[in-house]
């Protein structure tokens, strides 16, 4: 199936949840409403003509305070049919909740935990959503654009990141 076919198939099934289809960018994607994501994910995996049995990656994107948007990007692949699609879900930067697909694809478990660890995006329905890489008592989410490094960690000084002076 081409990506356009996948989009038509999804749009027929879940009309309201599918927001946008971009067939021009390098990574062609379908944008989905956060509320409908779990149903769409289950359908993508279980429909025999789609059969997206492999979740390749989950990535978080912080678009910055100007746009006030946060994104989660899912890269899906079907081993059976050899086709790919990228799913994007976006929401506000403050308090962004996305349904967890950890029960659909097992790989999502650690990837969602990592995305939470770095961006603070909360995945509702995840069984144990806690930090994956950083220590559990770390303050803040490092890959957010407005991240401020804490001064001390258990009495050890955390050095500040000095911004580089840009030459005009």
């Amino acid at each position, binding site marked *: 199936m081409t990506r356009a076919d996948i989009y038509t198939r999804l749009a027929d099934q879940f009309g309201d949840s599918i927001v946008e289809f971009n067939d021009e960018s390098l990574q062609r994607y379908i944008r989905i409403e956060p509320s409908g994501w779990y149903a769409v994910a289950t359908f993508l995996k279980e429909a025999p003509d789609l059969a997206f049995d492999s979740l390749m990656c989950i990535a978080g994107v912080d678009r910055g305070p100007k746009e006030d948007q946060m994104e989660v990007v899912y890269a899906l692949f079907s081993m059976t049919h050899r086709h790919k699609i990228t799913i994007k879900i976006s929401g506000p930067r403050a308090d962004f909740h996305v349904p967890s697909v950890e029960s659909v694809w097992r790989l999502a478990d650690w990837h969602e935990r990592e995305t939470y660890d770095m961006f603070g995006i909360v995945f509702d329905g995840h069984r144990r959503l806690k930090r994956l890489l*950083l*220590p559990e008592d770390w303050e803040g989410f*490092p890959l957010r654009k407005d991240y401020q490094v804490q001064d001390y960690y*258990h009495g*050890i*000084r*955390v*050095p500040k*990141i*000095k911004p580089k002076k840009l030459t005009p």
Partner: protein
Amino acid sequence: MGLLEHKFNDNIIVGQVDNLLNWARSNSPWYFQFGLACCAIEMMSTAAARYDFDRFGAMPRSSPRQADVMIVAGTVTMKMGLRVRRLWEQMADPKYVISMGSCATSGGPYWQHGYHVLKGVDLVVPVDVYVPGCPPRPEALLEGLMKLQEKIKKEKTFAKLEE
């Protein structure tokens, strides 16, 4: 042993206890395996047949309770820093620390942007010898161990410290 042969009655040797202790300690620096990053590969290479750490009496130990020297080989993150401290506390005295490579010494390539990297293992444990390099070659680590041996040989356990 030609010079010393048949010179002592009943195998009695007169000398300083400090010298005996230092001789024993400096020639059996059992090190705690502490491979954290790519420096660990060089440490393994040092321990293997070609460079042969064992000729200095250095034996790898997997438990801090059996080790004399902790070779911190690699990047120490903030999360690991607390563990490094705890493991160092579990080692029996006398204990020594070799900071191997630029990451363990100063943060190395993570100096500017690594918010999660400890900028030098000397922030959590006292370091005896710093071995520079990224990663240091096995010869450099051997040199570091020899420097540590020199340091141990100058130690005074029983003698009065000179004011």
